[in-house]
């Protein structure tokens, strides 16, 4: 069919007054004006910046990123020392940001879901307690929580020294040493180590690769087994029990590795001032993580509660009336519906958490803001470059998270008339 819309009814010839009074041109006129205003504003800002820099005898130059950083960073996910470049320091910071955010998101989700559900529980006492928790954490600034939790760690746990000498403190379970700077937990070493994979300056133990590989394999296998169980169920109506296979998938490989390579735990040992031999998890990380978790968890609890309440009572009644058990009702009926309501605000909480992790400096956790936006900017005097770069990185992270959210949203949108 050639039945397409023509551009519009024959219109009178163009007159300048139509720029204002004709709808089509008017919107164009308006847009052009706004465009010009915005562009001149941007131009003005850029012009000012250039003049100001000139007056100060400065320039915009990102080469500082490749010069020696010179400072040390307590927590690092990939190797770094003070001879590395500012760029690497920034990457360390970014990884630290992502690391604490990731841990925070996971923990806050668990906490939030648990609290949200418990707030709806018919246990009066617990529901009240959870309400108090939510209100207290939501209505007091996060910075305060970060400081308080960090202080609690610092104040209540002993110094490493306390584990030495006559009336020495004992390691918890003989393995874990909480101190006022970090918690020392056992590391793992192999009797028959297969060595490490060296990529540039990063050394990855083969064991870790093997372990992660087996984990990935287990995940894939699990999916396959569940799919098969589904097929069997579709065919026969009975779902084969799979929980023990699933369990085995995740338990057997680690145990095998453990035995084959002769793994053993290295108990943290107090050498000199500090523990070594184990892994020292800094209190700043734990406190920040805990504060972010507790704070965001309170918001997530509200989201979860609202999500569950949004699924009407009729849905569970209908499900019960069909003979479905409460747990199946939860999994098949309530959760799938509640998730649609919960997930979008949940992701925006993840976003908030990630952005809030920039308060890390209050406890000396060196995140992106602490390295690139803090010490680097300070040592090099490149605040313009450093801070703009930092903002761009945060923006990119945020956009990635909200991108995921949009994909999810468009996927689960309810079909309606």
């Amino acid at each position, binding site marked *: 069919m050639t039945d397409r819309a023509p551009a519009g009814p024959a219109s009178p010839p163009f007159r300048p007054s139509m720029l204002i009074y004709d709808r089509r041109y008017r919107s164009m006129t308006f847009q052009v004006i706004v465009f010009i205003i915005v562009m001149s504003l941007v131009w003005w800002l850029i012009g000012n910046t250039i003049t100001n820099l000139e007056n100060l*005898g400065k320039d915009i130059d990102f080469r500082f990123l490749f010069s020696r950083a010179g400072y040390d960073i*307590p927590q690092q996910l990939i190797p770094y020392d003070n001879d590395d470049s500012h760029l690497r320091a920034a990457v360390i910071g970014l990884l630290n940001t992502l690391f604490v955010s990731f841990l925070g998101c996971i923990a806050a989700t668990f906490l939030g879901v648990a609290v949200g559900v418990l707030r709806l529980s018919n246990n009066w006492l617990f529901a009240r307690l959870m309400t108090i928790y939510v209100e207290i954490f939501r209505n007091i600034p996060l910075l305060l929580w970060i400081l308080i939790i960090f202080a609690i760690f610092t104040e209540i746990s002993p110094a490493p*020294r306390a584990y030495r000498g006559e009336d020495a403190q004992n390691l918890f379970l003989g393995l874990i040493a909480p101190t006022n*700077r970090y918690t020392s937990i056992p590391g793992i070493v192999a009797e028959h180590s297969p060595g490490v994979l060296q990529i540039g300056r990063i050394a990855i133990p083969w064991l870790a690769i093997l372990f992660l590989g087996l984990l990935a394999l287990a995940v894939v296998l699990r999916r396959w087994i569940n799919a098969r169980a589904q097929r069997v169920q579709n065919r026969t109506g009975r779902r084969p029990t799979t929980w023990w296979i699933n369990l085995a998938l995740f338990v057997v490989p680690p145990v095998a590795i453990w035995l084959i390579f002769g793994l053993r735990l290295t108990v943290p040992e107090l050498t*000199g001032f500090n523990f070594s031999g184990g892994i020292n998890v800094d209190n700043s990380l734990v406190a920040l993580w805990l504060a972010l978790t507790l704070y965001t968890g309170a918001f997530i609890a509200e989201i979860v509660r609202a999500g569950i309440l949004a699924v009407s009572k009729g849905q569970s009644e209908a499900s019960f009336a069909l003979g479905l058990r409460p747990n199946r009702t939860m999994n098949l009926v309530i959760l799938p519906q509640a998730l649609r309501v919960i997930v979008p605000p949940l992701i925006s909480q993840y976003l908030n958490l990630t952005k809030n992790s920039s308060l890390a*400096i*209050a406890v*000396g956790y060196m995140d992106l803001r602490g390295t690139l936006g803090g010490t680097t900017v*300070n040592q090099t*005097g490149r605040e313009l470059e450093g801070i703009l770069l930092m903002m761009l990185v945060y923006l990119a992270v945020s956009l990635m998270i909200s991108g995921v959210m949009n994909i999810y949203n468009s996927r689960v949108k309810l079909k309606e008339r």
Partner: protein
Amino acid sequence: AEGDTLADVTGRDQLICGVNAGLVGFASPDANGNWTGFDIAVCKAIAAAVLSDPAKVKYVPTTGQTRFTALASGEVDVLARNSTWTFSRDTDLTLDFAGINYYDGQGFMVPRSLGVSSAKELDGATICVQTGTTTELNLADYFNANNMSYQPVNIDSNAEGEQQYMAGACDAYTTDASGLAATRAAFASPSDHIILPEIISKEPLGPVVRHGDNNWGDIVRWTLYALIAAEEYGVTSANIEELASNSENPEVQRLLGTTGDLGAMIGLDAEWAKRAIKAGGNYGEIFAKTIGEETPIGLARGLNAQWTQGGLMYAMPFR
């Protein structure tokens, strides 16, 4: 702000002075918000010299991170804050250090119970250090040079650092020796803590101005020298009036504007230095009043004694 800071200052009839947001003895506001301290005295002296009134100062608290930007952007006229004079700051950051009012050096403080008597024994220790300072870099260099390792605890303010140190979250606290002394002095039992003998860096501290406004730089520099020279020549806030009228010493006469017209050369009147000295006394008086041995902070003059006393304080001739 570019160009003529003096005109700006006289124009608004107020000196804007960038200071530390709270460092006992050097710059701290009391319960009523009045600023006092060693650095503050410099601001007051400049204000007295330029505006004839030591009270016409607005103190802008700055953090380690905001201080140089505040100065570069013209937000403050002078930075009287413990900032170390380094090559790159002087050149790359396009600042000008107008002089040195305190020769400092970075040191370590440890609890006596730790049983450490030298910084060389700190291998593997956890050390509290303020982020974004030269301290952080010196620390890294020192341990590198001595082939030792350490665990930094980065903190963002002095108060937080003290808190961590006192709670034992770090084995040692490192900052400029003056700061260590001030911190230690405030502890419940100062004798439980020792400041280790090693001074691992040179930390010359002094007022900073913008690069390029040399006239303003001169004013700040010579105000500082006036304070130092006054001590050298025995001019104190008590005897200054008397000396102004009947001092025999030609240098003192020039300094106090009794003879000559040094003030005009930097765009001020003849009595500028007299006012500056009167504002808070000479260098020695200021030192004694704010951080000296009589104060709780109890710093000895050490390097900061007059050159005549074996120290480094050496004012250029007023001629």
